[in-house]
């Protein structure tokens, strides 16, 4: 039950009365570290008188009992728990689906990035073939010169 806050070697009447006033006449409710010294002092005449006085209120407090929870309350709480657990499971699946979709999307983006890196870009010095270019070179001005030299 109680654990201690102070660790005194012996107890005087004042401290004993203070503890009885706070925790009552049952030493099991007292701070653990003071229970032993309290038990020793309780055997004295002064100790007995203090505990008797505190015990009067304890007897009254003990008379106030609370009924155990009914089955209806218990069942209702368990039922609500069931609904929460189902909801949480659904949420978990939803997040799992979202996670998988995210992984898929990330994969696609990574793939695209890889393709972009690996595939060589179009070099600026490469010639774009158009209608005026043949496999033998530009037929434009040279062709004209050739015709002139004939």
């Amino acid at each position, binding site marked *: 039950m109680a654990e201690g806050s102070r660790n005194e070697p012996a107890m005087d009447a004042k401290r004993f009365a203070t503890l009885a006033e706070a925790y009552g006449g049952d030493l099991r409710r007292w701070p653990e570290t003071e229970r032993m010294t309290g038990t020793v002092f309780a055997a004295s005449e002064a100790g007995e008188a203090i505990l008797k006085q505190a015990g009067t209120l304890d007897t009254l*407090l003990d008379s106030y009992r609370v009924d155990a929870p009914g089955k209806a309350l218990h069942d209702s709480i368990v039922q609500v728990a069931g609904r929460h657990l189902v909801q949480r499971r659904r949420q978990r699946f939803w997040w799992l689906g979202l996670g998988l979709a995210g992984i898929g999307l990330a994969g696609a983006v990574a793939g695209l990035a890889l393709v972009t890196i690996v595939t060589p870009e179009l070099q600026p010095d490469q010639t774009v073939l158009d209608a005026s270019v043949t496999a033998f070179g530009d037929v434009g001005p040279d062709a004209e010169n050739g015709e002139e030299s004939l």
Partner: protein
Amino acid sequence: MAADPDEELVRRVGAGDPAAVQALVARKLPRILALAVRMLGDAAEAEDVAQETFVRIWRHASSWRRGNARFDSWIHRVTLNLCYDRLRRRREWVTDEVPDVADPAPLPDAHSGEEAYRVEQALQRIAPRQREAIVLVYYQEMSNIEAAATLQISVDALESLLSRGRRSLQTILARDGADE
């Protein structure tokens, strides 16, 4: 720090184990209900508070991690906060709508024991902080360190609340006894 006896059960609840849910309700409902009944002095309201407390437990079980407080201290704090919300609403209601006549006396069969009824009434008349301290240490059988942690005060402050609370109860009960 000592091991938390509820930690494993809460972990299983968080994982969605129905048997763990049943076990946790069986273990904690009587304590939560008793705390709420003694704080509020109203069984029906206390049942509502107990239900709300468990809803919070189901919501947080999967993410609950032990910090400075044990699980039992945490649920006590949750229950006390819910009780305070209701006590505050009652005060607002009383301020807003002052009844013309005093509340009628309870029916004779409303409480099984006369002494128990006197204590119940006396507890409702002392300061809520003093009531909290007495309920946690006396009825919930918490250690002084656990109770102080739950109330977020020092052990000395707890002892002061307990002493003042018990003195107030003694005075009220002695006066009521003399009136009869």
